[in-house]
């Protein structure tokens, strides 16, 4: 019964996502097309090219058409799985993004997983004894973590752990010599992952710890917590079995909501750490006015955010029998 209702809900939400993504594509295109600057300059270079040549290039790429026509053409191509051609990289955008997406997912999933697990744990422990030593430490850490800009944290981590201490590499996703086979390669990947993932996590770790702490404190004052204790439930059963379950809704919302920001934040972190992901690709494509690449990445990020919101809603419905 509930499973069937959940199935319909997911289907309905997926259908809602279609017009949403369509609007995102149109808006992205319109915004970028209305910015000053001529992509043809990038393509033909800065030297004074003959006007006929520029007109020819514009015509080849359909840039001489009115913007609504350009948008319609772009949407049609996207629907056929064609995200366009990157002028700057001389490569189809789809294969360009596909080659970089795995690195970004590795970085963002690690950061999100790490900040969620540790943030929830710290929030729960912090709420256990409000104003205790641990609670004060977590609150201090949370304020600092939220206030510090992530690119600065990234640079400081490089300075301390890569340059001064020399413990961890500072650039790239694996050693420059190439990927070693087997466990050595995996260990090398992990060593490269630690600093950028840490820099990217800190802000969300702080946020999730704070939200968890607040939600837990509220739930721990509820009558049903007293009732569970009156049944002899252990502190652990009370905290995890009752309190965290009831406190989960706002925490899940915050995690889902921030997935988009983590992806956006990874643009800066990937740039600082030379991480070969779509974040750095986006940064580079903005610099080189590589519009098809920019739009392709924005589309992928939008789709991810829509998917994260959907996952958040599904989790809410699975956790709370009163919803839906």
């Amino acid at each position, binding site marked *: 019964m509930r499973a069937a209702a959940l199935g319909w809900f997911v289907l309905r939400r997926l259908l809602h996502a279609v017009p949403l993504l369509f609007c995102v594509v149109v808006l992205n295109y319109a915004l970028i097309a209305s910015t000053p600057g001529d992509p043809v300059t990038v393509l033909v270079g800065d030297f004074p090219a003959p006007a006929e040549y520029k007109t020819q290039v514009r015509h080849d790429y359909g840039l001489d058409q009115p913007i609504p026509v350009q948008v319609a053409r772009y949407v049609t191509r996207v629907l056929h799985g064609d995200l366009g051609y990157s002028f700057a990289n001389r490569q189809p955008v789809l294969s360009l993004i596909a080659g970089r997406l795995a690195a970004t997912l590795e970085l963002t999933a690690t950061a999100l997983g790490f900040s969620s697990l540790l943030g929830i744990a710290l929030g729960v422990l912090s709420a256990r004894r409000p104003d205790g030593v641990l609670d004060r430490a977590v609150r201090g850490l949370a304020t600092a973590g939220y206030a510090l800009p992530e690119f600065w944290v990234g640079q400081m981590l490089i300075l301390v752990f890569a340059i001064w201490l020399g413990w961890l590499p500072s650039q790239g996703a694996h050693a420059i010599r190439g990927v070693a086979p087997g466990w050595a390669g995996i260990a090398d990947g992990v060593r490269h992952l630690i600093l950028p993932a840490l820099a990217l996590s800190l802000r969300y770790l702080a946020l999730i710890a704070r939200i968890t702490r607040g939600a837990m404190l509220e739930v721990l004052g509820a009558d*049903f917590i007293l*009732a569970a204790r*009156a*049944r002899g*439930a252990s502190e652990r059963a009370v905290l995890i079995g009752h309190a965290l379950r009831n406190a989960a809704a706002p925490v899940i919302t915050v995690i889902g909501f921030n997935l988009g920001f983590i992806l956006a934040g990874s643009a800066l972190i990937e740039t600082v750490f030379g991480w070969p992901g779509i974040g750095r690709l986006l940064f580079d494509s903005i610099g080189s006015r590589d519009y098809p690449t920019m739009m392709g990445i924005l589309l992928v990020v939008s789709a991810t955010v829509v998917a994260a919101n959907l996952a958040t809603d599904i989790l809410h419905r699975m956790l709370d*029998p*009163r919803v839906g």
Partner: protein
Amino acid sequence: MSPVLDIRGLRVALRDGTRLVDDVSLHVDAGEIVGLVGESGSGKSMTAYAALGLFPTPHARIAGGEIRLDGTDLASLTPAAWRAVRGARIGMVFQDPSSFLDPLLPVGRQIAEAFYAHGQGREAPARVSALLEQVELPASAAARYPHELSGGQKQRVLIAAALAMRPALLIADEPTTALDVSVQAGILDLLKRLRADLGLAVLLITHDLGVIAQTCSRVYVMYAGQIVESAPTAALFRAPRHPYTLGLLASLLSPAVRQEALFSIPGTVPPARAMPDGCRFHPRCPLSLPDPCAARPPPLRAHGPGEDRCWRADEAATAWA
């Protein structure tokens, strides 16, 4: 026979020293329903929570006295040993079944919680159906969530959860207050039947003398953190000896019968931080005298099968008669 619950000289205080419960002694025997009656703020719920070693506010603590359960003083136990008592030897039923059930868990899980808490999780599934049957709910109710049940059904679930480990003592804190009048009688009948079937000792906390009259064999009346009168229920209703009890009983009578001047209680319970000198009830008492009532606190004195804490108990008893 020694009592199941024997509270002696219990004091509950806030961290700043404010006394919420002051020198309360009471006992409950096996197979007996004992009432603890008083207005809100009288300390009756705090007395009950003290027996569990749990308080709804983190600032309250037990400041003295003994809480003997089958002869063992709970107040001297370590926190872990006291947890082993909760839900196992003492079950508790609460006022508002809607807020005392976890909204995200099926009620069967909450009934089974005591089994898991006390290391008998393997028996839980089989015992939950039997417990539901005992409180007159279908076994299928175990899979329901609290929001799918009525108030009366939820209270039955809480009773089943409290009885899971076959405790010797059941504490019921205003178990019918949040329920519709039509449902209240069913819950009280259930408590009476469980007392008879299981030989339970029940401490029933209420502000409602009508509930006491229907269920209890003995009554303690609390006012401002103290026991002011105790007696077998019939004796208390027939011949009350404390002016506060008189006032409570008079409030049950119709206005035509009530002698307003004597039996209504003006004002409210004094706050725990500002207890009046002398008898704590004297500012509201129609019989109070400057001396001794306002000057010296009255002791709790035995009278027949009961006790009263009033300098003018004889005058009060005469006035009621």
